[in-house]
């Protein structure tokens, strides 16, 4: 499937984690590169969204929205630096 930009997940990240992904810098846990998360690859499906590193395609984040809970996996992110709101 084709991907979007991390920028496209701004609403989902704001809603579920309170993070403004469009102003966040992330470090990939796989290749250890650091980049604006808005530049990562976003794969959006009916069951959830996956954010992958644009360089190594390593998984950065998975967000699955279920009717009564949201499941978030951030194990692929070594760190996230966010601008203060």
């Amino acid at each position, binding site marked *: 499937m084709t*991907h979007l*930009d991390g920028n*496209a997940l*701004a*609403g989902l990240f704001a809603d579920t984690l309170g993070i*403004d992904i*469009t*102003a966040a810098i992330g470090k990939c846990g796989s290749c250890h590169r650091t980049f604006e998360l808005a530049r990562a690859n976003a794969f*959006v499906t009916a069951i959830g969204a996956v954010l992958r590193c644009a360089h190594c395609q390593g998984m950065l984040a998975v967000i699955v929205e279920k009717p009564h809970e949201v499941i978030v996996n951030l194990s692929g992110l070594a760190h996230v630096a966010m*601008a203060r709101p």
Partner: protein
Amino acid sequence: MSSPIRASWHVGRVASCRPETESAVRLELDVPTWPGNHAGSHLDVRLTAPDGYQATRSYSVASSGQTTRVILAVDEVPAGEVSPYLVHQLAEGDELEVHGPLGRYFVWSPAEPDRSPVQLIAGGSGVVPLFAMAAAREHEADHAEFRLLYSVRTPEDVFFAEELSALKKTIVEIVHTRRSPAGSPRPPARLTRESVADSVFPASATPRIFVCGPTPFVETIAGWLVQLGHDPTRIRTERFGGSG
């Protein structure tokens, strides 16, 4: 990076809706609690079915600044879950849930100190956030040079045709891929690396570049720009596609 405007959920009311092209609608929403938005940012529209099922999609905002009137231009994705409703069903007076403004990344703000030239490159309905940037530029007496390169299928598919032709501070070049306007000396053709090189600011001018369109369009253009010597960190992209 532009200054933050906090995103939250709002209820908007459709002030007007009219056809933008054969497949797209222009929606003007009155959102009393809208905090204003930077040019280029987007919002999420959430539809809720009677049984509680919800579908959310992102749309770029064509307007900007301190206003509670929010303008969208939505192209129909056939068999999509949200866009056919927005294009065909939504009527004046209807309410719509929107989440925004979203985005401090794919935005242009006149307050930014960077006065390098700004190159906008649009594929199809990807022109919406770029139009917002060009329209915002119109309000500034003295600022960066702007150019818009807009690839679109036919003359009838052009979004904001009147507004684009009225822009005084952005040089607009429209490239038709399927059919040119009657009398045009230029046969319809897709962009090529060479035609892009001829149209955009050269790498030596260190332009900031915003590219918006369907994923394959954005991938192709961004790849060419890097081959033409543009700094990848100066190129910002916004892809769309898929589920509409």
